[in-house]
Each structure stands twice: as C-alpha cells, then as structure tokens.
C-alpha cells in the first residue's frame, strides 16, 4: 500500500508545486518508487516545474475517462527512474475530476508505488477537495505572512472534516507544517512572523523551514526540482524535510540569521 501525501495551502503562490516536485524527487532519490500527481485541472504547471512539459501525451483526466491507461499517461522522470509524473488535464470542464475516478486511479497506483504526492490547486474548490480527500499525510505549505497563515488554518479545518479518513472515523490525516520563503534576517528585524509565531497560531508539527532563495526561481526556470540543486539552501532544506518525514533525526536549519552578534551590530545589508 502506498502512502498518499497531499501538498496543500489554500492560498496560491506559496510554493505548493515547488514543494510537490521537490519532495517527490527527494523520496524517489531515497529509493522509494514515487508518483506525483497534478490536481490543478485547467492550470497544469507541475510538468513545467519537473521539466517534462514536452513529453505530456495523456493526462489524469484521460486516465479517469478510460481514454488512456495509467502506464500510457505516467511520465518517467528524466533524472530519477523511481519517479513518475501524472500531469493534469488542460480541460476547462470543472467536473472532469470525480471522486470515484480519482479514488480508482489512486488505488491502482497504490499497488505499484510507495508514495503518491498530490499537488493540490489553490482554493477550496473541487480539485483541492479531491487532492486531500484520500490523503494519509498533509504537508501544509505556509508563508510567514498573514493571509497565508489564515488560509492554512482554514485548510486544517477542512482536512479534519472533509476527508475520507474523517468520514470513515479513521485515524485523522497527519498534518505537517512547511514554512516557505522564510527570511531569518527579516524575522530578526521584526518584519516577519517567526517560525515560533506561526507554530503557535497553527499548532502544527514543523517538518521544516525553506528559506527565501534565488535557487527556487533558477530551478523552475530550468525545469529541475530545486532539491537536485544540492549546493543551494532551499535544496538542502527540502532534503532535510524528506529525511525528517522518513524518520531521520535532522536538526532544523535556516531558522536563525547567519550573522552573529557583531554581524548584527556592524554588518550592513
């Protein structure tokens, strides 16, 4: 049986797709056969972030409608042979995804894969609901910013009530906080909510902090998940997150300002 992870946030633009691509690659690199699914029907983008946009032939909706088999639609990643991508459809039909259809695809994938990462669309519409409905674990991607924190809290409420696990009175979805675009310097200056602030408000288990980093845009520009940029701070932060998720004990990094006391006193920007 596969473990199903939903990457969600409510708010758009906080890093869901970047995170989905990174952690799926991280899990696959660790030797676990992983599938990553784009649930953003009509606004597919995971393919671009994974760098496989020119290899899309069939998509998620084709599989649900029986127009293609899973094997035809799954795209094998060019960097890692343990990783497969299922792209979203570009249809404008809002009802293209059905609970039955999604359930069947996940069930079929579960036979062959160890982890299934569901990249949720923003918002709380059907695509977002279906992305989380079957999940075992939820990665709640949050920016240290008021609207993102509020929307994350809203998503936690929905995760707790509108999932398969909730409906069947099973053990609830495990929720983890991923704080992205974090700037320790701005936190020090009192310009940004700190990790502790966000955790106090959301009371979530912190899986990791990803610092604001140029490497994220560089990675998306080239269609290579940022986790493969091993020299970058964001890449290392995602590697730590994958390791922690798999049960390794990794101390948190990228939370404190690199500058020491004298740096704070005399250092400029």
């Amino acid at each position, binding site marked *: 049986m596969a473990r199903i992870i939903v990457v969600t946030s409510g708010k758009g633009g906080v890093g869901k797709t970047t995170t989905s691509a990174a952690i799926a690659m991280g899990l696959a690199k660790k030797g676990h056969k992983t599938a990553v699914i784009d649930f953003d029907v009509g606004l597919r983008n995971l393919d671009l972030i994974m760098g496989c946009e020119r290899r899309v032939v069939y998509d998620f909706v084709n599989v649900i409608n029986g127009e293609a088999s899973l094997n035809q639609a799954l795209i094998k990643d060019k960097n890692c042979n343990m990783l497969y991508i299922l792209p979203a459809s570009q249809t404008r039909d809002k009802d293209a995804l059905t609970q039955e259809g999604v359930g069947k695809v996940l069930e079929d994938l579960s036979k062959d894969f160890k982890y299934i990462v569901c990249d949720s669309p923003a918002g709380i519409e059907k695509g977002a609901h279906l992305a989380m409905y079957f999940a075992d674990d939820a990665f709640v991607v949050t920016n240290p*910013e*008021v609207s993102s*924190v*509020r929307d994350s*809290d*809203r998503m936690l*409420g929905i995760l707790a009530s509108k999932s398969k696990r909730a409906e069947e009175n099973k053990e609830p979805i495990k929720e983890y906080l991923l704080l992205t675009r974090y700037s320790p310097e701005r*936190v*020090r*200056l*009192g*310009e*940004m*909510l*700190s990790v502790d*602030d966000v955790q*106090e*408000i*959301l009371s979530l288990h912190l899986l990791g902090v990803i610092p604001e980093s140029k490497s994220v845009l560089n990675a998306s520009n080239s269609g290579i998940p940022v986790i493969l940029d091993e020299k970058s701070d964001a890449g290392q932060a995602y590697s730590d997150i994958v390791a922690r998720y798999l049960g390794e004990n990794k101390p948190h990094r990228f939370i404190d300002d690199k500058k020491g006391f004298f740096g*704070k*006193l*005399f*250092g*400029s920007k």
Partner: protein
Amino acid sequence: MSSLLDYFKISKTSSASLAKERLQILVAHERVSHNQPSYLPQLQKELLEVIQKYVNVDKDAISVSFEQDEHQETLELNIVLPEHQTRKF
C-alpha cells in the same frame, strides 16, 4: 550605523508582532464559527420568529452559540427580554 539602530528598534512594536496579534484573534474567531453546525443561522431566525409572536424583542436580543469540547457539545440560547415586558396578548 543604521544596523545598530535596527538592532535596538526591535523592542518597539514591530509589524511582525502586530501580524501575530491580529492573526491570533482572527483565527480563534474563525475556528469557532467554522465548527458550528450549518443549521445555526436558520435555527436562530426561526426561534426569533417564534419569540416575537409572544414578546416584543428586536432581532439582536437573541443569540445562539455552539460550543464543543472533547466530551460534549453545548447549544446555548440567550434571549434578552425588554425591561418592561410588553406582551402582545
């Protein structure tokens, strides 16, 4: 020198602490309202109609609140009657 000033500026109210305060209030409020059963507004409306048949109360005089802890759910109904009750019948 600006960085030296920055360092001591933190003790003043920062925008981050303002953000935290606003969020704590908002999130607490929203958690309560989102956990309420969906029939609550309709219940409140119908109760008000029934009460208004017998007593002259205005629409702010009634409040229905729903609370939930681990062991029980409580539905609390609060009606403020006017000081000099003017009975309709």
